[in-house]
Every structure is written in structure tokens, then in C-alpha cells.
């Protein structure tokens, strides 16, 4: 019998009042893969991530982590399995990089020695060892993005959620971020990654799901998606536009 997926999302549903954000979304994420969640603006990517992170309670649908019921919105201990890297920079500018890492490590329940080890590892991964004791307010946008990423991974979560982590990042920092993610993948970390940039998904993701208007339109490896869309060998952007259309999305 095959091992259950790391995370199984089954018929997840979420609405903001009358507006449905996610409708019966079903997908699963395997251990050790980088799973891409792609979609135009307003497709429901962030809502899906927020439900998995426990920031929103989906009224319908179910989630399982390694085969066990998973309810992060209502069960604090379930949230320990998740590392959340929000789209916005979630840092305290007045604190140093090390103090930020230490604080969030404490919230994750790490004791002082574990925090110190995790902080050193995070600083190395973010390339910020030399700036560890500088206040974040003195950092560039790219440095902040890198720190934002490693804070989410401090407690070595089962699943790391990255919501559009490369927005507003220069090419050098973006490249560093990709290298960091590949390092994490080599360490066996499982990552859920949302992005607008198809080339990022093409480069990083083992499998992707394309989401539009709250529904999963397709799910598989980039090659499988191209095959399914009737454009074998095409890149992800071509497949994406074929599946979601060329109409502008403003919300």
C-alpha cells in the first residue's frame, strides 16, 4: 500500500460573503516535492494557502496530513507542521535579523539552544551571517525577502508555504532565493509555492496545480499539463494561458 501524501486537500470550499474564493479544490502534495499553485489574480491561491496555514477556517472540505485529519485553524498543535512565508514581509524592522529569528523561533516552541542553532542555520541559508546583528530596517528588499523565507523554515516544518515570495525582488536575490529553495528540497523539505511567474514554476516545481476562479483546472507535472492541454512540449506559460484564457483579471 502506497504511503499517503503529505497533505491531501479534499473539496476545500471558502467564500467571502457571496463571492466564492475556492470551490471544491482537491489536490495532494507528496513528501519532498515542490508543489506549485498557479493562477491569475483572484484565482484563490492565497485563500487556499491561508486555509492550509490555519489562518482561515474553511466551512466545507477536509484536509489530511500524512493520513491524519488536519485542522490547523482550530488546532494550535497542527500549525506546528506548517511553515508560513506570507506574501508581505512579516518582519520587525526595529529588531535585528537574529532577534527576529529568535522571536519567531520562540513562538514555534523551540527552546533557547534549538533557537540558536536554527537561527545560525537560517542566517547562513539567507546569506545574512555578516548582518545578523543589524536591524532589519537597514536591509535591502532582497535581504528582507531572504530573511522572510528562512523565518518560515526555522522549526523545520513538514510543509513550507510560500505565497509569491519573489514579488519585488531583484534578480540576484531571486536567484539566491531559488538556490535556497533547492537546498531545502535537497534536505527533503516539502514546499507549496504560489507564483504568477511561470518560469519560476517551470524551474522549481515538481508538480503544479492551475487554479482559476476558485477551481482546480489541472494538476500534474508540467509535462503532463502540456500533454493534457493538447500542447505537448509547450512551456507552462502557454499551457497556463490555454487553460485560463487571455481575459484580464483585475481582482
Amino acid at each position, binding site marked *: 500500500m502506497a504511503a499517503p501524501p503529505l497533505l491531501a486537500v479534499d473539496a476545500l470550499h471558502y467564500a467571502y460573503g457571496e463571492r466564492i474564493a475556492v470551490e471544491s479544490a482537491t489536490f495532494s502534495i507528496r513528501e519532498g516535492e515542490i508543489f506549485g499553485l498557479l493562477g491569475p489574480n483572484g484565482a484563490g491561491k492565497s485563500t487556499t494557502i*491561508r486555509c492550509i*496555514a*490555519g*489562518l*482561515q*477556517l474553511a466551512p466545507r472540505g477536509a484536509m489530511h496530513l500524512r493520513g491524519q485529519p488536519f485542522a*490547523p*485553524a482550530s488546532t*494550535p*498543535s*497542527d*500549525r*506546528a507542521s*506548517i511553515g*508560513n512565508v*506570507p506574501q*508581505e*514581509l*512579516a*518582519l*520587525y*524592522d*526595529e*529588531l535585528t535579523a537574529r*532577534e527576529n529569528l529568535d*522571536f*519567531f523561533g*520562540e*513562538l*514555534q*516552541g523551540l527552546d533557547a539552544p534549538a533557537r540558536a542553532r536554527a537561527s545560525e542555520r537560517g542566517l547562513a541559508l539567507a546569506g545574512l551571517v555578516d548582518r545578523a546583528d543589524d*536591524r532589519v530596517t537597514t536591509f535591502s528588499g532582497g535581504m528582507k525577502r531572504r530573511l522572510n523565507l528562512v*523565518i*518560515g523554515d526555522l522549526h523545520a516544518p513538514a510543509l513550507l508555504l510560500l505565497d509569491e515570495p519573489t514579488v519585488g525582488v531583484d534578480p540576484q536575490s531571486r536567484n539566491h532565493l531559488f538556490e535556497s529553495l533547492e537546498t531545502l528540497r535537497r534536505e527533503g523539505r516539502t514546499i507549496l509555492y504560489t507564483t504568477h511567474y511561470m518560469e519560476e514554476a517551470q524551474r522549481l516545481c515538481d508538480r503544479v496545480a492551475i487554479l482559476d476562479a476558485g477551481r482546480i483546472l489541472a494538476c500534474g507535472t508540467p509535462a503532463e499539463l502540456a500533454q493534457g492541454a493538447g500542447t505537448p512540449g509547450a512551456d507552462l506559460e502557454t499551457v497556463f494561458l490555454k487553460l485560463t484564457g487571455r481575459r484580464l483579471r483585475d481582482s
Partner: protein
Amino acid sequence: MNLLRHALAIARKDLRVYFRDRTGMALGFLLPLVLVAVFGFMMKLFVGQGDAFSRATLWVTDQDRSDASRDFLAALRQAETLKVRPAADESPVDETKLRQDLTDGELHHALLIPAGFGAKIAAHELPELRLLRDPDRAIEEQLISIGVMQAAIGTLGPDFADALTTRMLERAGIPAEWRTRTQALAKGFAGSVRLLFEERDAAERGAEQPAEEPEAKLGVNDFLGQVVPIVHEDFRPPERPKQMTYMLAHSVSGIGVMMLMFGLVACASQLLRERESGTLPRLLAAPMPRGAILWGKYLFALAIGALQLVLLFGFGAIVFQLDVLRAPVAFLVVCLAVLLAVTSFGMLIAAWAATTKQAEGLSTLVILVMSAVGGAWFPLQAFDPPMPVQIAMRCTLTHWAISSYQALFWYGQDLSNGSLQLSLSVLLGFTVVATITARWLFERRYVGR
């Protein structure tokens, strides 16, 4: 334990962030001290020189029970600057009870109409009154002096002028055999002068204000002492430092409470800043009870508030001789009750508001209104404002906080005192209601949307 551990971690982080902004921190702590100093010194300067603000409460006991004393009491009740107690429909209070209440700081001025009052008036002599007073309540005494003088002139009628002239002549050392002629001469002269003034006033009425008479520069009490003989007897709680005035004690506690509210609302607004700076999702996604975020902010605000109070009352003790350690346990209890209530107020504002701007706007409005109505700027508690104002005053947090501090610093009360217990109960009641509401709003606005 998990909740407390996480709440403490959040509070520590907030304190670290707070102390990083040294300029902001210095302003936060210095501003209350500057305001307290300015208000305190101004009150010190102006105390005893103020005009009538409203009515002052005067307790009266009639030991004569003659027609004349009853007329005098009725005239006192008519005086615009007085609220006479007991009221006409209340039971009389005897001298012993008044003395006890004065000693306890429960009341501040009592007038004794002595036995023989009516007989003296019948003999065309000025009767002697006895005013039991708190000597540091100078502003109220101005109002009382005016009211007593009005009542005396109204009650004694034309005989009063004769008796007054006789008294003045006696004081001037005029021999008795000269007085009758001098009085007749004075009457004629005064009548002529009065006529001249009346004619001038009739011609100029409404055109311009009359020139200030030289007598106006005399203190009301000095003048009253000349026309109505009053023996003063002072009552002051033994613990009260001599340097202190009521207004000064009021300034320290009133401005202190107001600034504490501003400071702690700002601290509580850290909750909104977490949301606006994007760190809130990370806190909400942490494996801890969500309430830890709110309690962390609560602990942070409490710590800053405690520090502010230490500085504020330390400053008051050093500069204004405020005796903060007279009743240390009661002082700590009052500080804790005020801190909890003000912090809960801050949390309520922060949990209600959707943005920092909303919180700042609402809190500024509410704090300024509560400060004005609750007597933080001016001691409304010392006077007798109209009933709607009294009700509004008692609906404010500032009133109960200031009353608690005044009970300690001014009236020398301790925790066994009923009025202090009432103030503390209201503060704690407010804390419970505001905290529960803040928690509910937090759950609704921040969690699971």
C-alpha cells in the same frame, strides 16, 4: 502555561521594539511629566485667585433655631454660589457629625449658626458665625464667602448697615460718644454718594463697563471678614503635606491618568501595527492559542503603563511633595486597578479599530472627552455640576481613576474607605467588561476571517 509563555514572548518582543525607538520612547514618557508640571505649577499659581466656577457645597447646622436663623438659612439656600446641605427636605446634621466628616475628608466646608444668633440681630449687633473648613480648598471658599455675604445682607436688611458701621467705628477706635453723630454723618454722606453713582450708572448702563473699584482688589475673604464676623476653624488630614493644594493633587492624578490613556492606547495599537506591517499572519499561524497575541499586547501595555506611573508619581513626589507612600498597599492597589482599566480600554480600542488611523482618531476623541467630562483638566468633582454633567462624569473612566487617586493623596483614605472601594470596584468592573469585549472583537476581527 502555553498561552502565558507565548504571551510573555510577544510582550518581550514588543518591549524590545518599543525601547528601540528612543526618541519616541522619550517623548512618550516626558510628555506626561511636562504636562503635569505645567498644569501643576499653573494651578499652584492660580489657586486662591479663581473666580466662581459653579456652586460650592456648604453644610450648615442651625444651633439657634430662631426666626432670624431660619431666614438666614433660607437666604443661604437662595445664594447663587452655594449648594446648601442638608437640603430642606433632608434631616439636619449636628456639629459633632460635621466635625467628624471634615476630619475624614468627606466634606470640606461647614457653617455653624450659633445659639444667640437671632438675639444679637434683635439687639442690632452683628452675630458671629463659625466656618469649619479645609483650608486648602481655597477656590470653593471664594464661592462660600460670596454666598454667605449675600445671605447676610439679605437677611439683616437695613439694620445690617447700622450694625456694620458701628463695628467699623469700633474697629477704627472711635470713642462711643462720637459714634451716633459719626453714624448720622456717614449715613448722609453715603446716601449722597450712592445717589451720584446711581445717576452715573443709569446714564452709562449698557454703554461700557463700570471702572473697577479699588475695593475689588481686596480678597473676598478679607472683605467678608470686615462685614460679617466669621471665626474659621481649620481641618486638614494630618498626613497631607503642607506644600500640596487640592488643585495640585488633582493635576498630578488628572493629567497623569489622561496621559496614561494616550500612552496605553498607543501600546495596544501594536496589535493593529502587527496587521498593517504584515506580521500578524505569522503570529496567527504559530502553534499557540490565538489569545496569546492579545494577552501579549496586554502585558506589554501593562509594563509600559507601570513604568509611566512610576515616573509620574516619582516626579510628583519629588517636585510636588506628593506623599505616594503614605499608604503603600492602597497606592499599589489603586495603580493596579487604574492600569488594568486603562489597558483594557486601550485593548478595546485596538480590537475595535480596523486601522491605526481609526484607533488614533477614536482614542483621541474618547480620551479628550473623557478627560474633560471626567474632570482630568478641571476638578469638576470638587464642585456641584448639574445632574446631567454629574451623570456623564460618572460614566467616564477618568472620573473613577482620578477619584481613586484623590482619595489617596488628598483625603488620606485607605482601602477600608467606602468611596475608595466604590471607585476601585467600578474600575475593576470596567476592566472585566472591556477585556471580554476586546477578546470577542479580537476573535471576530482577527481570527478566522
